[in-house]
């Protein structure tokens, strides 16, 4: 090997090492996503002391989130003492009705009916998601779960409703959430329902 070839070889190794160190360094500096149970009015099910703690970041207009909600419902129904589930909003900008749906869920939550609205929004997702104006469908849902229309109207116009939703999203971003549904099962990040199902099955073994 002549001098120039060995220099070229050395430079190649150096570039690979520099890339590896730079990426690893930045990742180390950024740290790992932090799991924490909400302290302010979490939308949760189960005991925070349960052995399997799940934080879910979801978007009501995301079809995979609807599948995930159904999956979690079954797991929790079959093992009620083992799960703690906390749901956080992560409305994606590409979903036209996602923010509005989250507002309705939040306002239902302020009347103690978050889970009823949550379940209805997901069960009827295919009905309202393709509509240009989903408002009438949301309105029907609020009647189905008997929300007080006056309080609902005030809540929908209240800026703190949006700030509560966006605060959840900000927390998600801080935990490097980029897609929905993203779950943190006992601090382990999982994106999508396939990975969630795999993890829950192995956790229950």
């Amino acid at each position, binding site marked *: 090997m002549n001098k120039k070839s060995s220099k070229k070889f050395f430079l190649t190794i150096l570039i690979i090492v520099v890339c590896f160190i730079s990426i690893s360094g930045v990742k180390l500096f950024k740290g790992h996503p932090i799991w924490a149970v909400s302290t302010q009015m979490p939308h949760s099910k189960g005991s925070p002391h349960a052995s399997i703690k799940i934080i879910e970041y979801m978007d009501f207009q995301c079809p995979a989130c609807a599948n995930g909600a159904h999956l979690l419902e079954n797991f929790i129904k079959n093992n009620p003492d083992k799960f703690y589930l906390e749901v956080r909003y992560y409305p994606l900008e590409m979903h036209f009705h996602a923010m509005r749906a989250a507002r309705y869920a939040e306002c239902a939550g302020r009347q103690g009916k978050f889970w009823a609205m949550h379940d209805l929004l997901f069960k009827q997702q295919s009905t309202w998601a393709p509509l240009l104006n989903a408002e009438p469908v949301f309105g029907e849902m609020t009647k189905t779960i008997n929300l007080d229309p006056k309080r609902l109207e005030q809540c929908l116009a209240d800026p703190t409703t949006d700030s509560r939703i966006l605060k959840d999203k900000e927390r998600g971003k801080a935990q490097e959430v980029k897609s929905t549904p993203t779950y943190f099962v006992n601090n382990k990040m*999982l*994106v999508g329902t396939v990975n969630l199902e795999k993890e829950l099955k192995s956790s229950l073994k």
Partner: protein
Amino acid sequence: MNPVVLIRIFIGLIFTVSGTEKLLSPYQNFLYVIQGYDVVPAPLDEWVARVFPWIELMLGVFTILGLWTIWALRGLLIVTAVFLCVVGQAVWRNLPIEKCGCFGELVSIPLPTILLMDSILWIYIAYLIIRMERTSRCSLDEYFSK
């Protein structure tokens, strides 16, 4: 500067940015994208999600610097062909993918558009390989061959 060199640097940058963005995010985000395309079988998908961004980054960096240029470009040609096949089958099967995931969350591009862009990219990479003499100007390869 020679426009062929500029194209080489630009293509290298695309792959460098794409690889870096994926590497700096938790690998689970890219794993979800891979699973959406329904091509890689289950035990392999996690491995692909961890390794593939490194390949993108390395090929991109070597292309920009012009080190082992012909090999880096051949690598990019294969990678782009793989992208074309994967995205093409997703469009053909009408898979419910809302965004390509090519650049993580930096840019969200619909699948038919990404198919067109990848095709153009593939043609440019092939062009750089054909015009290798001009492509390797202002490169480390040129420096080491003197």
